[in-house]
């Protein structure tokens, strides 16, 4: 077992799956040369350009052709260079990939994986920073995964590729090289739709995903030292389907819920979590279900000063924990 970055873990999952199943292939812009984040580096050398295929720069057709290839027996893994550029493919994902199985009464299926780097905090400006999970979590027929750790990335990407349904696999770009962790060399999968309780506690449930998991853990540690507040941190890992049971069980234990996400607050995925808690665990609540997220401005401004002003960070999360704990 070695310590790896998340981008290395993604690469390992891709090459493992391509070795394991010859139906798996990768396509997208610049993937042949390794891609802008180097996630596909070495794949063309090992598997040839047919299985690590550079496509014309046309996102709708990268996804649309993936759908077709999956209909004809292959397991495509499409890379969209930045989540901010996926919008031309929205129709293919929502109208086609997500609905093909249902509209054909189960006759056809669409086992594609769409990988894309998302998220802010890297001075990416308004077009290299977006969070897109809420758009797709809204759509029945899609599975949506948000990863920001090496271990989760490898195990969940393998599950995504093997899943018989279309899966959106969102990789937080700031987490690509932010830290290393132990990643087993051997094959393992993490089930889609299962959250991870990253830290146990009994004073409050903090529900999060993506890069905010790391920030929330930092914040939880900070408040424990300062104030003795015990926070249970749950990383959803998958936003659709999401692990309601895990969240509700924790809230019923702690009586308080703080939801932290990087996306704009209004209509963000955390709103769904908040509504579910309010409806399903109302009798157990000992404080308002609270959200910390980015305000409703286009994510994210280019200037580091402006970006820092907007995005949640460990300090803002710690402040939110203290406020809710004091309620």
């Amino acid at each position, binding site marked *: 077992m070695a310590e790896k970055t998340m981008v290395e873990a993604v690469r390992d999952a891709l090459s493992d799956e391509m070795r394991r199943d010859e139906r798996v*292939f990768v396509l997208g812009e610049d993937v042949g040369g390794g891609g802008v984040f180097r996630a596909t580096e070495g794949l063309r050398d090992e598997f040839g350009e*047919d*299985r690590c295929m550079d*496509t*014309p720069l*046309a996102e*709708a*057709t990268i*996804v*649309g*052709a*993936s*759908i*077709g*290839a*999956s*209909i*004809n*027996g*292959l397991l*495509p893994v499409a890379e969209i260079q930045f989540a901010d550029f996926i919008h*031309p493919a929205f*129709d*293919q994902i929502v*109208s*086609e990939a997500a*609905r*093909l*199985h*249902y*509209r*054909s*009464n*189960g*006759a*056809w*299926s669409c086992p594609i994986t769409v990988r894309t780097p998302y998220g802010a905090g890297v001075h990416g400006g308004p077009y290299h920073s977006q969070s897109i999970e809420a758009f797709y979590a809204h759509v*029945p*027929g899609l*599975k949506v995964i948000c990863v920001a750790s090496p271990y989760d990335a490898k195990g969940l990407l393998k599950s995504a590729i093997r899943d*018989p*349904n279309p899966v959106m696999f969102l990789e937080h770009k700031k987490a690509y090289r932010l830290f290393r962790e132990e990643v087993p060399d051997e094959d393992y999968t993490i089930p889609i739709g299962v959250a991870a309780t990253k830290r146990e506690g009994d004073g409050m449930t903090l529900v999060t995903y993506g890069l905010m998991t790391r920030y929330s853990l930092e914040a939880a540690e900070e408040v424990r030292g300062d104030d003795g507040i015990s926070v249970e941190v749950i990383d959803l890992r998958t936003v659709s389907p999401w692990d309601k049971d895990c969240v509700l069980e924790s809230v019923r234990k702690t009586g308080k819920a703080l939801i932290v996400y990087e996306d704009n607050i209004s209509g963000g995925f955390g709103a769904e979590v908040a509504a579910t808690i309010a409806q399903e665990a109302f009798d157990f609540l000992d404080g308002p279900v609270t959200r910390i997220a980015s305000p409703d401005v286009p994510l994210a401004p280019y200037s580091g000063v402006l970006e820092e002003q907007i995005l949640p960070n460990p300090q803002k999360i710690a402040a939110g924990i203290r406020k809710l704990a004091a309620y």
Partner: protein
Amino acid sequence: MVSVSDVPGAQGLSENQLRELYYEMFLARSVGERARMLSRMGKGPFAVTGEGHEAAQVGTAYAMTPGKDWALTYYRDLGVALTLGMTPRDLLLAHLARAESIESGGRNMPSHFSSVDLHIVSGSAPVSTQVPHAVGIALASKLRGLDEVAVVYFGDGGASVGDVHESMNFAGVHKLAVIFVCENNQYAISVPASKQAAVTDLSIRAQGYGFPGVTVDGNDVLAVYSVAKEAVGRARNGDGPTFIEAKTYRLVPHTSDDDDSRYRSREEVAEWAKKGPLVRFAAWLEENGVVSKDEIGETEAKAMAEIDAATEYAEAAPAPDPATAMRHVFVEEE
């Protein structure tokens, strides 16, 4: 003895094959008429059909190998679906949203053809989204070493959609076995071709993507078959895509919810009806001694009997069980 196959224009087809072409065309026309009639009777909420497009549809589909080659249709393609092997019963079950419908079991609108066995891929309603699927299917055929051909259909309005252009570019770059068939009926609902494109022949666009494009008289089934056969041959040989533009005319409103008299004169429609693909082909068959008037009548009676039986069957077939409405959002685990 000179056989009809040697008659100029017969494209080497036998008498039986020529009769079969007529049968499929008449069937497509009449299933469409039946579907619209059932809607007017309040038996199906909606009908979208393709009367007038029969030569473009049957002529191209007849050049394919059913169950091997892939068809990605759009909502007018009754003639494609029937020629490849779907039946009037399949189409009318879908029209009435019956549980048994192989298209969708009542989930999708009618005329969204689908058959896994026949490689007719389920379609949607956003225009031209099926076109990139043909590219992906052909890409998979190439990677898997299969000599299948993917034929994708869309209209003149659909030809304006970015997905078509992206797909033609992709297919050209990778020299894929895709045939792009544009059924140009000169109207996108009410919008005339002149407001859809600045060129007269859409087929010239193929040049810009590095493969041949051909415009054919889409009301002449033998001419359409001839260009389709050549395109299928090229694709199967690994010589890449072809764009076929079949110029034709829709003889009916866009859908059961459209009134085409608000945008085109009755005289114009009547003029085109005289040049329709069925009258033309019937005349050709008679002139070349393939069939007599009586035989045409017999063929049509046989098709109508099939449609009547299908109608009766579909009307009696049960609607979907409401308890199944939540099924098939995701693939169900074994």
